């Protein structure tokens, strides 16, 4: 395993052995998670790569790329894979519990408060305002991700994008049905285009 024992980056050839205990894993992921408003990825990178030096930046990017193309919550996938690399399945469970446990407790308290006070007019108005801003943040992510497709005039990609948007957002078709058609189609087209480019 190259993750427990490796040389440190540009500073020199100093070898470091990292083998955090399960409790250390739990605490580290709880800290990253509780720091992460509007997404934990930035803090996970900071914690894993910069602070604890448990992974190099490249290792982190590779692992994240893998977890991003697999379904499910990316950061949870990353945490699971990462925990297992350091300490096996117990490591996965410790890191996952740290990532999800404390913020889930906060969420449950928020849920209790919402149930009790959700009908209060001032709170309803505040949440409406927060929702408007939060939707803007999500649209910013969409635009940022779309930019590379537009720049390289990826017509097929953009058509797939619009088709999924219409099917799910406008026609309100079930996700599974749409993706069972869209995923094989998109992979087939991408594969065919790559072959054509290579030829």
């Amino acid at each position, binding site marked *: 395993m190259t993750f427990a024992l490796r040389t440190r980056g540009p500073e020199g050839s100093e070898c470091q052995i990292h083998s955090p205990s399960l409790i250390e894993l739990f605490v580290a992921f709880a800290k990253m998670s509780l720091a992460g408003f509007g997404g934990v990825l930035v803090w996970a990178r900071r914690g894993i790569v910069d602070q604890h030096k448990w992974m190099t930046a490249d290792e982190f990017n590779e692992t994240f790329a893998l*977890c991003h193309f*697999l379904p499910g919550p990316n950061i949870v996938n990353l945490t699971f894979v990462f925990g297992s690399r350091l300490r096996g399945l117990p490591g996965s469970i410790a890191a996952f519990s740290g990532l999800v446990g404390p913020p889930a407790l906060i969420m449950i308290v928020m849920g209790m408060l919402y149930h009790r006070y959700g009908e209060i007019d001032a709170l309803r108005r505040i949440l409406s305002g*927060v929702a408007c801003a939060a939707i803007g*943040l*999500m649209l910013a992510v969409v635009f940022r991700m779309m930019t590379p497709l537009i720049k390289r005039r990826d017509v097929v990609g953009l058509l797939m994008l619009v088709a999924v948007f219409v099917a799910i957002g406008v026609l309100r078709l079930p996700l599974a049905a749409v993706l069972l058609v869209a995923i094989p189609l998109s992979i087939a087209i991408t594969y065919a285009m790559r072959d054509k480019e290579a030829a």
Partner: protein
Amino acid sequence: MNSDANPVFALALTFATMSLFAIGGANSAIPEMHRVAVDVHHWLTDKQFTDVYAIAQLSPGPNVLIVTLIGYSVAGLAGALVATLAMCVPTAVLALFVSRFLARSSHARWPAIVQAALVPLSIGLMGASGFILARTSDRTVIAVLVTVTAAVLASVTKLNPLWMLVAGGCLGFAGLIG
């Protein structure tokens, strides 16, 4: 399917299935969460759903925890626990297996193709998330302006997103959102 009898079971089944189709992360699954929670099971109203989304954004932790809130609204603590685990564990185990398989194989070309093929789909899903939430939330001119301003600021500045959420909340408190 008579899932009204046992909402915890319905939550488990719903989110475990949904997670397998959440390409690009939890935000891609928001249209499906809305469809199931609001349209199919009537667990939440439209307004409650956007409230839950706003609360989840205001709280720390991964985006996926919106399902904790949905689960709590449906079936209390048990619902929160079951929804969270159902949404996280199956795909995390899948990720674990795939990462071990890839570490041992040399099929390095496939992940790149699959990734390139999935990115447009996941952007389309996230766009649909924004659209569905906006249909409920952005009903006044000022509300739309808040959304557009937040989108622009998040795109062109490095401002902490939390400030935009707080600003939105203040405008809402002042009664400007409607």
